[in-house]
């Protein structure tokens, strides 16, 4: 009865377009009222949900990204990737994906990546004769690497809402899939580029490569600090996020000297707003999680599913999430669906790191699927095309990404081998 009221209330408010965080608060409030439980729980659970040391990494990683998105650093990074990939057909499109992968190891959000890189790379691609829709599609699919390659705000949110999953572990689990997706997208782009005769650049000689490397070096140190710090067992995730933010600050304001102190308020404001969004979601999801635990929902769902073979369950999860991703935001999905799907997968013997990687990668792909595909929304106007045009051009890249996801689903070493090397 109380559970039904929670579900119905949530669904109705969702369809109405009610903000997800408020939705979870209001439908949990209704649940508590119907179930006869005191309302104080809402506040107490919300506070505890926001009061985790791990969540502290969220504002710091966002801040790091904000520092890194200023001019010269990006150019240096693009030129560096170009020095290595420039001679191949479809050079600039490949460079876009390569740069996305590097930026992905610095920023934790797709939107930070797409907004900054897109404003550089889409006009450049158009100038070199790529069709606007293709340029937009390449950027939209490349930016998916942002939240797949660690660090990833989405994965932190996943670990906080689901529990039992180590943030550093899931970061490690996502590295190989991220690289595979980048390679798969590049191969697809190369095929299209050859067919359509997109241009390449001159082959850069080694002295040029060395020069570009030196120029990009300070920026390239950032992933080394973030990933090396976490994986080399020097820092915890939260600590490395703080160090990364400090390093990015020094880089932007003292080394490249392109940040102005007057930019600081904007940077901090952007950081604050995005963090507020994510952390409030984490808090309100904790309230709903209490209701789900109190009703022992997972046990109830687990019964009928227990007859299902694991492979069928995982296929169901993947297809279900893909459909969900067409309509739902990734953060909202992870806090709502993660705590239900993950425990069922655990009980079937799926490794927590693997199911975490599957869920997060799937939801990230959803960022580029219409009708609600946030990266399509950002790149399309930059290229001056419609969302449908971008999506049509993006289909090949999205299909190969999904195929990689299926490999990840059915071949656990892709996610588990690397974390196991580090003892997770």
């Amino acid at each position: 009865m109380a559970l039904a009221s929670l579900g119905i209330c949530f669904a109705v408010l969702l369809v109405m377009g009610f903000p997800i965080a408020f939705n979870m608060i209001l439908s949990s409030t209704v649940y508590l009222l119907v179930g006869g439980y005191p309302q104080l729980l809402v506040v107490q659970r919300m506070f505890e949900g926001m009061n985790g040391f791990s969540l502290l990494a969220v504002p710091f990683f966002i801040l790091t990204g904000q520092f890194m998105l200023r001019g010269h650093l990006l150019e240096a990074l693009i030129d560096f990737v170009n020095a290595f990939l420039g001679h191949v057909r479809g050079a600039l499109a490949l460079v876009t994906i390569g740069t996305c992968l590097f930026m992905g190891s610095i920023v934790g959000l797709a939107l930070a990546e797409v907004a900054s890189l897109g404003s550089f790379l889409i006009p450049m691609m158009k100038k070199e004769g790529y069709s606007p829709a293709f340029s937009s599609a390449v950027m939209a699919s490349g930016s998916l690497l942002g939240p797949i390659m660690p660090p990833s705000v989405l994965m932190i949110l996943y670990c906080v809402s689901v529990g039992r999953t180590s943030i550093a572990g899931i970061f490690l689990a996502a590295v190989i899939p991220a690289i595979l997706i980048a390679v798969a997208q590049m191969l697809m782009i190369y095929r299209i580029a050859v067919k359509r005769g997109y241009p390449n650049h001159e082959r850069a000689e080694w002295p040029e490569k060395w020069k570009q490397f030196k120029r990009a070096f300070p920026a390239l140190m950032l992933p080394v600090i973030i990933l090396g710090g976490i994986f080399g067992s020097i820092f915890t995730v939260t600590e490395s996020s703080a160090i990364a933010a400090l390093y990015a600050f020094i880089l932007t304001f003292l080394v490249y000297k392109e940040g102005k102190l007057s930019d600081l308020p904007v940077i901090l404001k952007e950081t604050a707003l995005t963090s507020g969004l994510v952390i409030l979601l984490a808090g309100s999801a904790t309230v709903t999680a209490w209701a789900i635990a109190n009703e022992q929902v997972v046990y109830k769902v687990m019964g009928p599913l227990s007859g299902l073979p694991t492979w069928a369950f995982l296929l169901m999860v993947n297809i279900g999430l893909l459909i969900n991703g067409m309509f739902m935001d990734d953060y909202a999905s992870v806090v709502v669906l993660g705590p239900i799907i993950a425990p069922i997968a655990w009980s079937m013997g799926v490794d927590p790191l693997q199911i975490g990687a599957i869920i997060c990668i799937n939801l990230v792909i959803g960022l580029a699927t219409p009708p609600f595909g946030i990266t399509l929304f950002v790149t399309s106007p930059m290229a001056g095309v419609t969302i449908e045009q971008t999506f049509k051009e993006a289909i090949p890249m999205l299909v190969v990404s999904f195929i990689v996801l299926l490999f990840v689903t059915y071949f656990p070493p892709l996610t588990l081998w690397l974390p196991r090397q580090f003892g997770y």
Partner: protein
Amino acid sequence: AKPIRISLCNSETHPQSIGLQLFKELVEKQTNGELKVNLYYNSQLGGERESVEQVKNGLLEMATASAGPMTTFNNKFMVLDIPYSFNDYNEAWLVMDGPAGNALFASCEAIGLKGLAWMENGFRHTTNSTKAINTLEDFKGLKIRTMEAPMHMEAFKNLGANPTPVPWTELYLVMQQRVVDGQENPLANIWEVKMYEVQKFVSLDGHIYDPMPLVANLDWYNGLTKEQQTIVSTAAILGQNYSRAVNAARERYIVDLLRSKGMEVNEVSEAEKGKMRAATQESIIKSIKEKTDAAFVDEWLSGIEKARKDIKAGL
């Protein structure tokens, strides 16, 4: 009627959980299903401190928590933080079940909590990755993870170690990354967290006895019929005793298992424990007296003395 919901932070197989499973069986059977009991393991409904707060505010019927989180509600629980108070389980149980333990529970009623029983978590021992701790001097310079409990930290400082508070969820990671050399926990936890993967030495110093009070919301408890109250409180005691028996039996077994996993387990001699006691107790008792009711602390200490005498007389 609504079920009795109990929040626990451990998994299904922890001794305290096993004790509460017996509690559930007894209560449901003896009330002919009139009272149902739901157990929520692994902090599903919230962490220890938070769960007790939920009980206090009537959001939950019952919860268990370690002494640390309990002190935020009732600082008399600090007496449980006095290191090297007990020589063995018999002493500890006699004190907890006797007038001293009852007085501690009685002091909870003022804040709306009814203490029912002391579920077993066992003695806390020290593990580390560099050397076996046989003497007081062996603590020197070791970086030991403790709970975020000021008295525990002070105790390890007094022993010459370097205490570092780390949240439970990050414990395995910091040991693996060698951020700390060691940590301290009951054997049940040492086994459950697979510390043998990241630690080499277990030294059975039993510095603190760590019971987990099972507390109920006082108003809810008073709302039960007399008969139900008797069933609930008796079942709680039986569950407590069962969890103690299970834990004691399991600890011997766990020691063997840890050895088979390559850990070196050593007993700390009574003489050395005496030195450790001398190094820590006085200053900690002093700080606890400053922070809470000094008369209560004295009463507690004499309770321990009396229990010790009773045991001797029994022999």
